């Protein structure tokens, strides 16, 4: 039994700036992190591993330096880490990305072990589309359970899963047969912290890379060529420059009064 976790290396968005000329993210010197939602997917997979003794594979599509992301997964305890990296994968939208990821999962299914679950974060913090996970489920014809905040029941032998989905203002309990693809929200769990021994061991590992020679996908269905959508413009919304009023440190009461006055004048305080 194998659980596959899809993780993505994303720029630390709190530190990202946009180049106004080229409309692209300025990535120079910006640290990369594991997409925060994916860390919860990874944690859940590892918890299932602890509980059922199944194996966990982490896969990631990205440039060669995304190896670091997979090493973090190895340090946390995944059994296999595979980087899907090839120039022809580049420039992919969510459709083309899900084609590559689905092909890799299918390959793991035939070559390593039967895949019972695929776990993804609900979305990435750079693209925010939340489409890649569902895309994978569609390509593989897996059950699709999005926004999962709890796995209530899981029975590998009966091929059944019951989850709670976190929707706006309510929860939905859903039963589904396996194999299934889950996208998860942060409330699902609290990610673990890597042990030093595991980090040191992971640092030594050369992560296995699968390129398109390995996957043998039709080039029309991957990368830029396989992407019907593309970003025409990217920009930060202009924001009016704020105003500093009073000195809240020296005179907190007076400044608070000043602030109330300001907000009342703008009709921003409901009375």
């Amino acid at each position: 039994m194998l659980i596959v976790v899809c993780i993505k290396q994303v720029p630390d968005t709190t530190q990202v700036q946009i180049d106004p000329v080229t409309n692209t993210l300025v990535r120079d010197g910006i640290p990369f992190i594991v997409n925060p939602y994916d860390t919860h997917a990874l944690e859940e997979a590892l918890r299932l591993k602890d509980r059922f003794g199944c194996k966990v594979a982490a896969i990631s599509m990205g440039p060669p330096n995304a190896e670091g992301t997979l090493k973090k997964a190895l340090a946390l305890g995944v059994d296999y880490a595979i980087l899907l990296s090839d120039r022809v994968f580049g420039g992919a939208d969510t459709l083309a990305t899900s084609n590559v990821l689905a092909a890799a999962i299918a390959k793991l299914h035939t070559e390593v072990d039967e895949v019972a679950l695929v776990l993804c974060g609900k979305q990435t913090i750079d693209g925010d589309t939340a489409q890649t996970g569902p895309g994978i489920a569609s390509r593989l014809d897996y059950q699709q359970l999005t926004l999962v905040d709890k796995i209530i029941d899981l029975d590998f032998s009966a091929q059944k899963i019951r989850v709670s989905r976190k929707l706006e203002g309510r929860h939905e309990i859903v039963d589904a047969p396996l194999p299934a693809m889950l996208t998860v929200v942060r409330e699902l769990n609290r990610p673990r912290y890597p042990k030093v021994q595991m980090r040191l061991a992971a640092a030594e590992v050369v992560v296995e890379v699968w390129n398109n020679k390995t996957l043998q996908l039709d080039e029309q269905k991957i990368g830029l060529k396989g992407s019907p959508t593309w970003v025409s413009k990217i920009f930060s919304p202009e924001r009016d420059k704020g105003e500093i009023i009073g000195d809240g440190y020296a005179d907190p009461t007076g400044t608070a009064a000043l602030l109330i006055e300001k907000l009342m004048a703008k009709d921003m305080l409901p009375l």
Partner: protein
Amino acid sequence: MTPNPYLFAPLLFASLAVFALACWKRLSLISLGKPEQRCDSLGARFNDMLLYAFGQKRVLAKPFGINHFVIFWSFLILLIANTEFILNGLFPHSIKLIMLPFELYVPLAFMIDIASLLALAAVTVAAVRRLVAPPFPEARTPEAFFILTLIATLMLASFALNASELAAFMLKSGADPASFLAEARKVMPVSGLLAGLLPSLQLGTIHAVAWWAHALALMAFICYLPNSKHMHILTAIPNCFFQRLEKPNTQPREDFAIGNTFGVDRVDRYSWKDLLDSFSCTECGRCQKVCPASITGKPLNPRAVIHDIKVNLLENGNALKNGTAPRVPLIGEHGEGSVSEESIWGCTTCGACMEACPVFIEQMPKIIELRRHLVESEAKFPEELLNLFENMEGRSNPWGIAPSERAKWCNQLNVKPFDKDTTEYLFYVGCAGSFDSRAKHVSVALTQLLDKAGISWGILGKDEKCCGDSVRRLGNEFVFDKMARENVTMFIERGVTKVITQCPHCFTTLKNDYRQYGLELEVIHHSELLRNLVRDGRLTVDKATTEMGATVFHDSCYLGRHNDVYEAPREALAAATGAAPVEMERNRNNAFCCGAGGGRMWMEEHVGERINITRVKEALEQKPDTICVACPYCMTMFEDGLKDVKADNVRVRDVAEVMAEAILR
């Protein structure tokens, strides 16, 4: 009247065998510890031993210390008397002190008699103290009364012995009793006095009973000593000799190689000195009486930590020697011999325990070793630390704020970047000074003062990274190591040699911890620099500020106890306000922590009274208008504490802010 050597000798040798066996057992356990260099600078070590072991300097720092001093020195003097006693017991009539030249014998006999009296008085005081007001409640043990009674028995028996010998000699010599006893009282005041009171017909019985009482008590003492906490009589002196010559304000580096273990989860992963520490503790309880965690009702008790390490070593010693798994885990809720995780996380690393320990036991570093194991090998820690660790590693500040925001505090100011050719000092702002809205005011006040004094300084801006203090004290050495190496490399590349810090945690880390990475910086805390600038006339206070009202000063642990900077902030405040700040009851090296050190700043405090509340209440006893601090963590703890006790009329100000008020406004 003669003691029987054929009875005494076998008993004596049996007790000496018990003694030797117990000593051997414990000393061989110490050798299970990892190697550590503690034999350098022999001169300094010898000095420390004379001062602290024989001079009892730290023992005497507390009122009852004099009691221990008396017992210690009486014991040393009585070693002579007891040697005589043993030799005389083995070879009757052949060896006696009285065979010494009279000029030597008289003062020696006098000293022994007086020492016995003082020791008797001291153990009586100790026993009464344990009955009436023990140093700490658990100190009222049967063991304590047993050992005190044993010592008292030795003293009383020796008086009776000497007195009966004197009386017998008087009878035999036919001397005039009045003049003989008067002479005898000059040599042995107590025994001489007693000699006149003894019934002459029972002298033989008295002598025999006293002799055997003394002999049995002495042998009991010999057997009991190395099997109890009183083993400190043997280990405390070497423990003072092998103490850390530099202040234990930093932790040793770890070697991050595959296959190594990190931190300590078994006693044999401590160093031999750590294990010697555990046998040197006589459980006086001074550490627990100054520990902020113990005082405020947390499970941590530094005395108990050392005791548990000793018990664990004794319990697991054989298993560890044989290379089998230890029976009692060192970490966890397993009763005596184990240290609970809650205790391990309760430490603020304030160092008060180490400052109080008369024999220089290092409690705090042992706790950090346990933290290292939990964090690095088990990834087990209070959940609020997960964010901290990730923020520190990912964004190099505790809050996870974008590093690009680091220099925002000085957007409105004209601040130069540090450049080794044009600026003298690096002002290492620190995370609090850069991001914390309250501490930013201190950064601004300080920079204005630096400019006023004409200091040439610059900052690293968004390239500045966290020093890593909190992660190191929390036991996350792996992340600290990465942070320290990055910082050290950057400092070397940029040619940084002189650093101003406004945070005692940055101060100690740059100054002491980074030395382990080969970087010797001249680091100055802003309170020292400001004091120097006033002293040198580069900053002048024309008119002391009256804004602050009555001020009280709180010592930061990492400025004071860990780095001995006590006077600079006080002198700076005195210059600014025209009067020395009022002292709290616990101040300087005895100051009470604010509760934020050792990474506790980032953790919840659920058990007992909050440490900052305890300290705020202590400060408020002095009726201050302003509480002055020299550390952003202390600042936060006091600001929060004052709000909690609803003391809205009292302010908290950093030394720099008070100076700025006096000089710039």
